[in-house]
C-alpha cells in the first residue's frame, strides 16, 4: 500500500472561491450599490424613458410632432383618433430613423396654464424653446402637425430643401401674397440668411409644417412672438393665434421679414382636395404624379373624415412605393 505523499500548504493559502461565493461577498459588502443596480435593472424592463430624456444624439435635424391635440378634453378620443396618431407617429419615426434625424413627440394636451385666453399661443413657442434646449447640437427644427403624412420618405431634407435653400424659397411677397400685405417695406435686407421656413396657403401663413434654424434671430423671434399688449388688442381678431401674430410681426417689423423664407406649399405641406376647397389653383393640392413630399390634412377635424384621409394617403404611399422587379429592396420594407 502506498501512502499519498505529504504536501505542505503555506499558511496564507486560501482555497479558490466560486463565482457564486464572490457574488455573495459583493452583495454583503456593497449592499446599497446592489440595491440601486437591481432597481435600475428592474425598472428598465418597464421603461427606457429615463435614458431617453438624456437625448444623446448628434442629429442636425429634429422633427417635432405635435400629438394628442386637445388630449381628449374637448372630444372623446375614439379608436380612429388613436389609429391616426399611431400611423402618423410611425411614419415620422421611420423617416427620422432612415435619415438620422431626431424625432420628438410633444404632447399638446390642453394645459391649465394655457387656458387663459391671453396665453393660448404660448404652447407652440414654449415647445420650440424647450426642444432647442433639449437638443443643443441640432441646427434645424421641423414642426409638423399630427394630421400629416410623409409620402416620399426616401428624400432627405438636405436633398429636398437645405442644400439649395435660396433657390427653393421665395422671400419677397410679390410672388404670392394671399394676405395682400405691403410688398416693399423699408429696412428689409434680403442679404441676411434664412432662419425660418414657412408656407402660405389660400388663407395666408400656414404653421402646420414649418422649420426654424437655431440662431440669435430665432431666439429673438420666439421671445417676441407673444406680447400682452399685442394680444390684448387683437385676441378677438386673431383666430389662429400664433399664426396671425406672426403675420402681424412679419408685416410691421423688417428684422423678422428679412429672415423668413417661403417654401411653395406643396414642397412640405401639400393639401388634400378638402382643404382650401374653393381655390382653383393647383399649387396647393397634393399631386400624385408629381410625387409631392408630404401631405397635410389641414382642418380635417372640422367636418371632414381625418381617419379616412389618413388611411387613403397611407395606402397611396404604400402603392407608390410598392416593389417592382428593378427595385427589389422595396419588397423587404
Amino acid at each position, binding site marked *: 500500500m502506498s501512502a499519498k505523499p505529504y504536501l505542505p500548504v503555506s499558511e496564507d493559502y486560501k482555497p479558490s472561491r466560486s463565482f457564486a461565493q464572490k457574488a455573495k461577498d459583493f452583495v454583503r459588502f456593497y449592499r446599497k450599490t446592489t440595491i440601486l443596480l437591481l432597481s435600475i435593472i428592474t425598472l428598465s424592463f418597464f421603461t427606457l424613458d429615463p435614458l431617453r430624456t438624456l437625448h444623446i444624439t448628434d442629429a442636425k435635424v429634429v422633427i417635432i410632432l405635435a400629438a394628442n391635440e386637445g388630449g381628449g378634453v374637448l372630444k372623446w378620443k375614439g379608436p380612429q383618433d388613436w389609429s391616426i396618431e399611431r400611423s402618423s407617429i410611425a411614419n415620422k419615426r421611420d423617416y427620422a430613423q432612415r435619415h438620422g434625424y431626431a424625432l420628438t413627440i410633444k404632447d399638446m394636451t390642453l394645459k391649465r396654464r394655457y387656458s387663459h385666453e391671453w396665453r393660448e399661443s404660448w404652447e407652440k413657442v414654449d415647445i420650440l424653446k424647450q426642444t432647442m434646449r433639449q437638443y443643443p447640437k441640432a441646427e434645424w427644427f421641423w414642426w409638423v402637425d399630427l394630421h400629416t403624412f410623409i409620402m416620399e420618405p*426616401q*428624400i*432627405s431634407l438636405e*436633398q*429636398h430643401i437645405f*442644400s*439649395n435653400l*435660396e*433657390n427653393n424659397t*421665395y*422671400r*419677397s411677397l410679390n*410672388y404670392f401674397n394671399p394676405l395682400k400685405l405691403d410688398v*416693399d417695406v*423699408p*429696412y*428689409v*435686407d*434680403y*442679404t441676411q440668411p434664412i432662419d425660418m421656413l414657412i408656407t402660405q396657403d389660400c388663407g395666408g401663413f400656414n404653421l402646420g409644417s414649418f422649420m426654424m434654424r437655431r440662431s*440669435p*434671430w430665432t*431666439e*429673438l423671434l420666439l*421671445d*417676441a412672438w407673444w*406680447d*400682452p*399688449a*399685442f394680444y*390684448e*388688442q*387683437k385676441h378677438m381678431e386673431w383666430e389662429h393665434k400664433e399664426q396671425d401674430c406672426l403675420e*402681424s*410681426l412679419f408685416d*410691421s*417689423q*423688417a*428684422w*423678422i421679414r428679412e429672415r423668413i423664407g417661403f417654401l411653395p406649399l406643396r414642397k412640405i405641406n401639400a393639401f388634400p382636395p378638402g382643404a382650401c376647397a374653393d381655390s382653383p389653383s393647383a399649387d396647393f393640392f397634393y399631386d400624385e404624379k408629381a410625387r409631392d413630399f408630404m401631405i397635410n390634412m389641414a382642418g380635417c377635424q372640422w367636418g371632414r373624415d381625418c381617419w379616412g384621409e389618413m388611411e387613403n394617403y397611407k395606402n397611396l404611399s404604400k402603392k407608390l412605393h410598392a416593389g417592382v422587379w*428593378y*427595385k427589389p*429592396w422595396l419588397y423587404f420594407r
Partner: protein
Amino acid sequence: MHLGVPTKDNFKPKGKSYLSLPTKYMRYTNKWRKTVLSFLFLVFIYLFFVSPSAVPQGKFSQLLGKSRRAAKYPKVHGLHVKEIRLKSPLIFPPIESAPLLKEIGLSGLFHTKVLHDPTTKTDKTIYQYFDEDFLSDNNELSNVNNKKDDGALLSAKKAFLNHGKRVFTGSQSPEIVVVTAIDFDKYELSGLMKIVQNRVDYAQKQSYGVYVRWIQEFVPILQKHNNDKEWTRLMVMRAAMHAFPNAKYFWYLDQDSLIMRYDIDLYDYILRPAALDPIMIRDQSVIPPGGVIKTYSDAKPESVRLFLTQLDTKIETDSFILRNDVYGKAILEFWMDPLYRTYGKFSAHQDSALALMLQWHPLILSKTALIPARTISSLNTYMELPEGGDDVHYSEGDLVVLFRDCSKHQTCQKDMEPYWKKLTTK
C-alpha cells in the same frame, strides 16, 4: 514562299472574299469580354440611377446647372427708395431754413388731403408723403402750382423733402453716431443752432458721426396712429441705423440737452465691457420702486445691446445707446411696432412701451443694462446741490445736461443759455 520581294500573288485575296480581312472582324475578338463589359455597364447605370444609394436627382440636376436661378430681391432701402449718398459723417439739415419751414407749414411740406368725418362733423387733414418722383432727378420740384413758393421757400422745402434720403457712404465709417430729432415749432433758430452745433462739435472732436432729423419729417407716420411726437426718436434711430450701416453704436440724445464735455470718448467711458462691468446696475427693478421684474444679477457686459438710465420712477429715453446688430435692430423695431403705438394704456408713450417690453421679454431684458443716470443723462436743476452732487442732477464735469421738464414750463431755450455760455467761454 515569301522571300522578301512581294510577288503578285501576295496581294491576292485569300478565301472567298476579295477583301483580305473578313468584314465580321469582331467575331474573332473575345465574344465573352464584350458581354461582360456591357453587363457591367448596365449594373453601373442601375446602381447610379436606380438603387437606394443612387445619386440623388437634386444633386444631379444641380451639376447640370438646371436649377432655378435665385430670385432677385429689392435692395435694402429706408423710408424713401431713392438715396442721396454723402461722404461726410455729419448729416444734419440746413438749420437756417427753420423759420421758412415754419412759414410753409405742414400743409405746404406734405401732400394734404382733407377728410370729412360725418359723425363728428369735423374736418381732418391727412398729411402724406409726396411720390418718390415728385422731385425729379436733378432735384427740381416738378408740378409746382403753389405760387407762394418763391426761391428761398422752394429751396427750403426741397431740402426738407430730400433730407431723409441722405445716407453715409464714406470710406471710413464712424464707430459711434450721435442721433437727435429737432423740432422747428419748439425752438427758435438760435436754439436749434446751439443744439446742432453742440452735437457737431462733439462729434468732430471724437470723430463720431452725427445724424439729425426734423421731427416734422415723420408727421405722416405719426398721424397714422395718432402718435405723440415723442415716438419720433425711435424712428429717427432706425433711420440712423440705415444711414450708417457700419457704425457700431448709436446714441440718441434728445434735443432738450447739451453735451458738456467734448473730451470724453463714449466708448472708453461706458461702452467698453471693462468700463461697463462695474457700473451696470444689477438686480434693479425695471419699474422702481419695488417692481417685480428686475435686471439680471448675473448680466454680462459683453452681451449688452441697449444702454438705459433710470430716473426716479421710470426708465427714461431722452438719452440712450443702442448697438447696431441683429439684437439692436430687433429691439428697436419691436419697440416701435404699430401695435405698441396704438395701445391705449401707454401713458408715457415710448417709455411705457419700453417698460412693458423689458418686463415681458426676458431675452430683451438680458441684453439691456441700466447705468447710473449721471453718466449720460444728468438733469438740470435750479436747486443748490450738496458737495459732490447727487445721483441724478448735473454737477460740474458731467458729460450731458438734460432739460427734462423744460417744455412743461416753456423754458427750454432759456435754460440752455448758461450752459451754452459755459461751453463757449471754455
